[in-house]
């Protein structure tokens, strides 16, 4: 299988504080890969570095074959069209309706006709499980769960091969969260996605993840399947998984 994301010897400085010190990880094609770790360990920072919102101090990040440290503007623009990002709170454009939000990348980056764009948008709305009737509402008029679905539909607008999810189930009630998990699994199978996510929801991890990387003390302390992670002797892993079992 092809490597989709490759991080080697990554170092990140946040003010005077070292966040990552020699961090390595590899995400393979078709995987659902989770980042896990205590809060403040730099999971979200790592995600932001992978989507080019932040720069690292040294080391290399390779996403879909592009080396991010030496990427040119035009290449970066190309790469941005090949992945989708779902932000923690959706980050839908509040001045546009759900439909316009999803259509925006298509309108800006393609020469498709209006009718064709409408059909593509309807397909995305259906596949994430939103009602077509809700699509003309503004983000402020819909619930948190719908916002996440709409944001997911928007991140799928350009048919990316790679999806980044930042805490996809946070702020959702347990039923919607499970629904969202199965949606992610369904999309992976239907669209052949590779998914990289940051999550705190243990049930969601057991349901969806193929591989997990656990960050603690500025490094990856474990990379592999979730079931083997419990065998590692580390304080974070012990408290996190024991707490999970008792629930």
């Amino acid at each position, binding site marked *: 299988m092809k490597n989709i994301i490759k991080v080697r010897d990554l170092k990140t400085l946040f003010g005077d504080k070292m966040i990552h010190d020699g961090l390595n990880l590899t995400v393979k094609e078709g995987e659902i890969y989770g980042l896990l770790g205590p809060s403040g360990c730099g999971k979200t920072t790592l995600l*932001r570095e992978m*989507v*080019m*919102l932040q720069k690292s101090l040294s080391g290399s990040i390779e996403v879909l074959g592009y080396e991010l440290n030496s990427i040119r503007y035009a290449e970066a*623009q190309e790469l*941005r*069209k090949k*992945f989708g*990002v779902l*932000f*923690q*709170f959706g*980050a*839908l*454009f*509040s001045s546009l309706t759900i439909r316009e939000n999803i259509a*925006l*990348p298509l309108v*800006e*980056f393609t020469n498709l006709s209006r009718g064709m764009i409408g059909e593509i948008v309807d397909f995305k709305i259906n596949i994430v499980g939103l009602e077509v009737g809700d699509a003309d509402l503004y983000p402020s008029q819909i619930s948190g769960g719908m916002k996440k679905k709409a944001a997911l539909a928007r991140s799928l607008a350009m048919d990316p091969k790679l999806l980044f999810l930042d805490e996809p189930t946070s702020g959702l009630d347990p039923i919607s969260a499970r629904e969202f998990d199965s949606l992610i699994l369904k999309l992976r199978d239907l669209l052949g996605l590779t998914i990289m996510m940051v999550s705190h929801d243990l049930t969601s991890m057991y349901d969806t993840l193929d591989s997990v990387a656990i960050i603690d003390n500025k490094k990856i302390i474990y990379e592999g399947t979730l079931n083997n992670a419990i065998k590692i002797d580390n304080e974070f892993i012990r408290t996190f998984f024991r707490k999970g079992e008792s629930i």
Partner: protein
Amino acid sequence: MSDSSLDIKIIQNRLSLIFKGELTLLNIADYSKQVDVISLNQQQSVYIDFRELNFLDSAGAVFIRSFMKKLSSRSIAVETLCQNRDILAMLELVSSQENSSITTNKNKITLLEKIGKVTLNNYYGFISFMHFIGELFVNKFHYLLTPKNIRYKEIAFEINESGVKAFWIVSLTSFLIGLVLAYQSAYQLKIYGANIFIVDMLGLSILRELAPVITAIVVAGRSGSAFTAQIGAMKITQELDAMRTMGFNPYRFLVVPRILALMISLPILIFVADMMALLGGMIIANIDLGISTDLFLDRFSSVIAVKHFFIGIIKGPFFAFLIASIGIYRGLMVKDDTQSLGFNTTKSVVEAIFAVIVCDAIFSIAFTSLKI
């Protein structure tokens, strides 16, 4: 709830504090007043009697601990009388927390360190503004060189927002300014019988200085703050991040359209302000000085050269650029909290008005040197 009270007894050199009922957050303020009045100098030993106390909360325990510490610093012996286990446990809890919290010692910041930090922060602020200006110009040139990329829809929308919708407030403000200016100067001019010179005075001051500056200040308060708040809120909700990851350059989508829109609409607003302020002046000249409208306009066209009008208008795009770029820059500086949104909005208006006035002063000097 049982009655709570504190009895203080002094027998020879022995002080007894007898707490009854409850000792909680609600009554420690009164008790501490009572305790503070006692002079501790003559005391040799203190009895604290909890036997009739049936409830002690953590605030009460902290109060007791600090009183005991005060006593021990004067080497006065303390004895507590208590059988209630809960109260003892609470006292124990507070004293154990005390020991663990002692270690956090705050570093004091010296004046020199403070000056250094402020200077460095200002330097970084300046650098980041230059970075913004640089990125702005690169994008602006790129934008104007490729006309198909120009976002006419956004520009039109922003012209409506910041130009058309400001029409009434700008008209009213400048009308009143013209009125007041004429009214004040009419009184002075009448003394010298120089009534007709009101035309020269109003024409020059309004066209060259007042209309552009007043308009710019109104627009800075209206649109500058709106830009900061809009873009700041987009930053807080991660909409800007979302734009970036989707490959939309925020400069091209948000920044340049707003700046261009304001640069187009401000000169037009200045023209409106010119007209309204002169109208105000004309009405007062008519009523107060008996100068008819015909006479006013006749005199106006003979003494006020057209260059004065153009000097006022040409300031528009410059002021607009300053207002819009400061407003947007401040919006981009908003961090992930609501506090910084308010802080940056205030700053954007203050800085924009200041920049407009500085820019106007520079224009004044430049035009005078050029003898325009």
